[in-house]
C-alpha cells in the first residue's frame, strides 16, 4: 500500500532532526493558527495562492527563496562547526551518514531552491515592468512554474523527516549514487526534487523569453531594452538550451535506479563520464544562468546610484551574449582530471579563460559608471562595491583553475569550494540581495531601513573573507572537499577561523531578518518617511518601473508607455514628465486560477510517491493532473477587463501623491 514507506523511515532517533522537526512544527502551527484566527484563509487563497499576477508570484518566490536561504545556511553552520571540531580523533557531532546528507542538501538547496528561486523572483517582478508589459506572456504557466518550484522545495524538506536525503553531493555523481551503492531513498528524493523544479525553471525560461521578445511596449527597440532584461533574456536562452539536459541526466539516473538500466553503472557498459559530461553541460551554464541576472541588477543599481547612464551599454549587452556562448562550451573544466587528452583539456581550458574577457569588461563598465558620477552609498550600492572587489578575486582564482596544469592539484579541493563560493556569494548572492533591497519599495510601497541593510552587508563582506580565505589556504594544503574529519594539524587553525566566519555571516543573516521585521513594522504603522509616494523611490530611477506607482497596480501600466529611448523614464524626467496623452481604455487581464496550486499538489504527490515506490498514488496523481489540464483547456472564462473608472481613480490618486511630493520639496 505504501511502497517502501514504513514507520522506520522516520528518524526519531536523531536528536538534531527531532529538534528541527519540533521547531518547524511549532512555527508551522503558529502560522496556520494565525491565519485561521485572523480569518485570512479566503484572502490567502483568492489573492495569493491562485494568483497569476507576476508581482505577487515574485513575492512568493522571494519568501520561498529566503526561507530556503536560512535552511541552506543552517547546513553551512553545521558543516563548519563539524570541521572545527572533528580533528585528531574527535569524530565531531555529525557522523558521515548525517554529514554527507548535510553537504548534499546545502548545495542542492542553495542552488535550486535559494539562488534559482530568488532569480525567478527578480525575473517575475522586474522584467514586465521594465519593458512596459502588463503581465508575462503566459500568466497561468507562470503560476505553474512557481508551484513546481515550491513543491520540489517542500519535497526536499520532507526528506529531513521522512527517510533521508541524498548523501552524494549536489550533483549526485554516479556510480556512488547508483542503487548498488545507495539503496536508500536519499538519491530518489534528490532526483525528483530536481526534476520537478527543473520543469518549473524550464517553463519560466520559455515564458520570459517570449515575454521579452513579444510583449515589449510598442516602440521599444532591442537596443533600448534595460540591461537587467537583457541579462534575463540571455539567462532564459541558457535555461532553454541546458535545462533539458539536466532533465535527461536525471531521467537516465532514475532509469538506472528504478528499472535496473546501465547508463552510468560500473558494469553493463555504463559510463560515469557520460554522466559527468551531461550534468556539467547543464551545470556550467547554470552558474551563468544565475550570475547574468545578478550582473543585470548591478548594472541597474550602478547607474541609478551614480546618477549617470550605465557606461558602455552596447558593450555590456555584447559581453553578456559572449558569456552566454562561451559559458556553454567550457563544461569539461569541471573534470580535467578525467584523463582526457591534452588537446581536449587545452580547448576547454582556453575557452574558460576567455570568459574572463567579457566578465572583465563588465567590471570595467561598472567602474566607469561610477567614474565622474555622484555616487550615493545607500543600501543596494554597498553590495556593488563589495561585489566588484570580491568577484575580481573570485574571477582570478577561476582563471587559475582554468589552467589544467594548475587544476590537476586544486580540483575537488577546498580551494575549489572557496572559488565557487567566492563567485556565487560575492556575485550571485550579493547581486540578488542588492536587487531585493533595490526593488523592494517598488513591490511594497515602503522602504526597508537602510541601516540594517548596511550592517547586513558589513557582516556578509567580512564574514565571507573570514569563511573562505581559510578554505583557499587549506585547499593549497591539499585538503579535499566533503571530508568529515581529519587529523592534519596544519588545517585545524584555518578551519577554526572559517567557523568563526560562518557565525559572522550568521550575524549578517540576522540583520537581514531584522531589516524585514522592521520593514513590516514600519509598513503596519505607516511610518511617514518609510512610504514611497512617488514611485521613484531612489529619486534617480531611469527605467520604466520607476514611472508607475508603488506598490504597482495589478495592471502595471494605466497606459502603455511611450518609449523615448534607452532609460525612457530618465528622459521623461528631463522633459518634466509630460502629461500622458490619449483616453484610458479598459485593460484586458487574465483571471486568477486554482490550476497552479492543484497541479502543485499533484506534482508533490507524484514526487513523494515515486520516491517511496507507491505506484497507485503516482497513477492517481498523474490522472488528476491530466484531468486538471484538460478541464482548464476547456474553460473559456479565463479573462476580464479592468474598468476605466478603477484605472482613473488609481491615476488620480497617484497624480495627487506626486503633486504633494513635489510641493513638499
Amino acid at each position, binding site marked *: 500500500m505504501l511502497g517502501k514507506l514504513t514507520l522506520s523511515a522516520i528518524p526519531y532517533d536523531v536528536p538534531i532532526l527531532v529538534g528541527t522537526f519540533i521547531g518547524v512544527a511549532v512555527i508551522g502551527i503558529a502560522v496556520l493558527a494565525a491565519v485561521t484566527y485572523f480569518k485570512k484563509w479566503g484572502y490567502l487563497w483568492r489573492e495569493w495562492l491562485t494568483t497569476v499576477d507576476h508581482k505577487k508570484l515574485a513575492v512568493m518566490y522571494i519568501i520561498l527563496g529566503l526561507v530556503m536561504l536560512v535552511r541552506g545556511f543552517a547546513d553551512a553552520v553545521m558543516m563548519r562547526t563539524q570541521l572545527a571540531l572533528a580533528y585528531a580523533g574527535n569524530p565531531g557531532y555529525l557522523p*558521515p551518514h548525517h554529514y554527507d546528507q548535510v553537504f548534499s542538501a546545502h548545495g542542492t538547496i542553495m542552488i535550486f531552491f535559494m539562488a534559482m528561486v530568488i532569480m525567478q523572483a527578480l525575473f517575475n517582478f522586474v522584467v514586465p515592468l521594465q519593458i512596459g508589459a502588463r503581465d508575462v506572456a503566459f500568466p497561468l504557466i507562470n503560476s505553474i512554474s512557481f508551484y513546481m518550484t515550491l513543491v520540489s522545495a517542500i519535497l526536499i524538506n520532507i526528506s529531513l523527516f521522512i527517510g533521508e536525503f541524498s548523501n552524494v553531493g549536489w550533483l549526485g555523481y554516479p556510480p556512488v549514487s547508483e542503487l548498488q551503492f545507495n539503496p536508500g531513498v536519499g538519491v530518489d528524493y534528490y532526483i525528483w526534487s530536481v526534476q520537478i523544479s527543473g520543469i518549473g525553471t524550464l517553463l519560466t525560461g520559455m515564458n520570459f523569453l517570449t515575454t521579452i521578445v513579444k510583449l515589449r511596449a510598442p516602440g521599444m527597440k532591442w537596443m533600448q531594452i534595460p540591461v537587467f532584461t537583457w541579462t534575463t533574456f540571455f539567462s532564459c536562452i541558457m535555461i532553454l538550451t541546458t535545462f533539458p539536459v539536466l532533465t535527461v541526466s536525471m531521467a537516465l539516473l532514475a532509469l538506472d535506479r528504478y528499472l535496473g538500466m546501465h547508463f552510468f553503472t560500473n558494469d553493463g557498459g555504463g559510463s560515469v563520464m557520460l554522466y559527468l559530461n551531461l550534468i556539467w553541460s547543464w551545470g556550467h551554464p547554470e552558474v551563468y544562468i544565475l550570475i547574468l541576472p545578478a550582473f543585470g541588477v548591478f548594472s541597474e543599481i550602478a547607474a541609478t546610484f551614480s546618477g549617470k547612464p550605465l557606461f558602455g551599454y552596447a558593450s555590456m549587452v555584447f559581453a553578456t551574449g559572449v558569456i552566454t556562448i562561451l559559458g556553454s562550451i567550457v563544461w569539461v573544466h569541471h573534470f580535467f582530471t578525467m584523463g582526457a587528452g591534452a588537446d581536449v583539456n587545452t580547448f576547454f*581550458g582556453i575557452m574558460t579563460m576567455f570568459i574572463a574577457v567579457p566578465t572583465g569588461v563588465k567590471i570595467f563598465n561598472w567602474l566607469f559608471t561610477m567614474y565622474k558620477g555622484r555616487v550615493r552609498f545607500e543600501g543596494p550600492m554597498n553590495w556593488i*562595491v563589495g561585489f566588484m572587489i570580491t568577484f575580481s578575486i573570485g574571477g*582570478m582564482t577561476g582563471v587559475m583553475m582554468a589552467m589544467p596544469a594548475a587544476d590537476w*592539484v586544486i580540483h575537488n579541493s577546498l580551494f575549489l569550494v572557496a572559488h565557487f563560493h567566492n563567485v556565487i556569494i560575492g556575485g550571485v548572492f550579493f547581486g540578488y540581495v542588492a536587487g531585493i533591497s533595490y526593488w523592494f519599495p517598488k513591490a511594497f510601497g515602503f522602504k526597508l531601513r537602510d541601516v540594517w541593510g548596511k550592517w547586513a552587508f558589513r557582516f556578509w563582506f567580512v564574514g565571507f573573507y573570514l569563511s573562505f580565505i581559510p578554505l583557499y589556504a587549506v585547499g*593549497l594544503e591539499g585538503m*579535499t572537499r566533503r571530508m568529515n574529519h581529519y587529523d592534519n594539524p596544519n588545517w585545524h587553525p584555518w578551519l577554526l577561523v572559517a567557523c568563526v566566519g560562518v557565525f559572522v555571516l550568521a550575524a549578517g543573516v540576522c540583520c537581514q531578518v531584522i531589516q524585514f521585521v522592521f520593514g513590516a513594522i514600519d509598513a503596519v504603522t505607516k511610518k511617514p518617511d518609510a512610504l514611497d509616494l512617488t514611485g521613484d523611490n531612489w529619486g534617480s530611477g531611469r527605467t520604466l518601473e520607476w514611472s508607475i506607482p508603488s506598490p504597482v497596480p495589478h495592471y502595471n501600466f494605466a497606459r502603455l508607455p511611450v518609449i523615448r529611448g534607452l532609460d525612457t523614464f530618465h528622459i521623461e524626467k528631463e522633459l518634466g514628465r509630460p502629461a500622458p496623452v490619449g483616453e484610458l481604455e479598459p485593460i484586458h487581464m487574465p483571471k486568477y486560477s486554482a490550476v497552479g496550486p492543484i497541479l502543485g499538489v499533484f506534482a508533490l504527490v507524484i514526487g513523494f510517491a515515486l520516491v517511496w515506490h507507491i505506484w497507485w498514488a503516482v497513477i492517481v496523481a498523474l490522472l488528476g493532473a491530466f484531468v486538471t489540464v484538460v478541464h482548464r483547456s476547456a474553460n473559456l472564462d479565463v479573462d476580464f477587463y479592468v474598468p476605466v473608472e478603477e484605472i482613473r481613480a488609481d491615476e488620480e490618486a497617484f497624480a495627487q501623491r506626486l503633486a504633494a511630493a513635489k510641493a513638499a520639496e
Partner: protein
Amino acid sequence: MKRLWRFLPALPALMLSGCTVDLLQPRGPIGEGNRDMMVLEFAVMMCVVVPVCIATLVFAWKYRASNTKAEYLRNWSHSNKIEVFIWGVPVAIIIFLSVVNYWSTHYYDPYKPISQEMLDKAGAPNAKPLHVEVVSLDWKWLFIYPDLGIATINELDVPTKTPLDFRITSDSVMTSFFIPQLGSQIYSMAGMETQLHLMANVPGNYQGEAAQYTGPGFSDMRFRTIAMPDEQFQAWVQNVRAGDNAFAAKEGLNAQTYPQYAAPPAVSHEEAPKPAPVTYFSSVQSDLFENIVAKYNNGKVRAEDGKVMDMNSMDMHSSTDAAAPSHTGM
C-alpha cells in the same frame, strides 16, 4: 571593527609560520610544474585584480555624492578609447595565458612519461620508471608493484628520483588518486584504466588521498606515500617479500584472496567505518590488475598493444553481486 581589520593582514602570516603548504612546496617535478602555473597565473591576474580593486575604492570615494567638488558628467556613458582599453587589456592577458595554457597542458600531461629534461634536472638521467598499479576500493587503496611481485594496501612506498608510472582503476565507485606534494591527480574508474606519471625528488612521508567523494568511509580513504632513496627502497622490497614484518598479510594476493581484502568494512549510521590497516603482500598475481578491469567489461581487457584479451579464466564477480554490502548500510 577597526581593530579586527588591523589584525586581519597579519593572520595568514601568523598561521602559515611553521606549516607546510603542500601545493606550494611540492617534492617532485610535476608538482613544481603545477605550482609554477598557479603562481604565474596568480601574478599575471594580480596585475588586473589589484588595480581594479584600488580603482573601485578610489572611484567610490572620489565620486561620492557628498564630494560636490568632483567632476560630474551626468550623461557621459561612452568612450571609444576606454572601450578599446577594457576589451584590449583582458584579451591581451588571456592570449598570453592561453599560450602558457597550451604549453603546460601538453608538457605536464599526466599521460606523458616524466621527460628527460625533468630527469636531468633531478640528477638521474638514466632512471628507469617504476610501474605501480593502483586500485581504489571501498575506502582503501591497493598498490600493486607488477615488476616486483608485491602489493600493499594504504601505503605507497617509492624510490626517489625515479619516474613513477601509475595505471589506475577502481573496483568500486569513482574517485581521484591524489598525492598533493607530488602533483597532478587523475580519476580512478571501474572498468577503465587511467594513467598518471609522477616523480618524487626528495625523500619524505607525504599524504595521499581520495579526492572525490566515495561514501561514508571517504574521509579515511587515505594513504601515506613514503619516498626514500633507492637503496632503502630495495631493502624495503626485500622486507616485504620476506613477509616477516608487522604489516605482512598471511597470504599472497591473488584472485582467491583478493575479494576478502577488497570487501568494504562494516557501515553504520552512527560512526565512520574503520579505516583499513596498512598491509603488505609478499606476492601478487601478475595479472590481478587486468582482471579487476576486465570484470566490468564482460571479462575482457585491452592490452597495451591494443589487442583485446579474455580474462574469463578467473571469477572475480563476487564483490559486484547485489548481495554485496552497500555504502549506506541499509
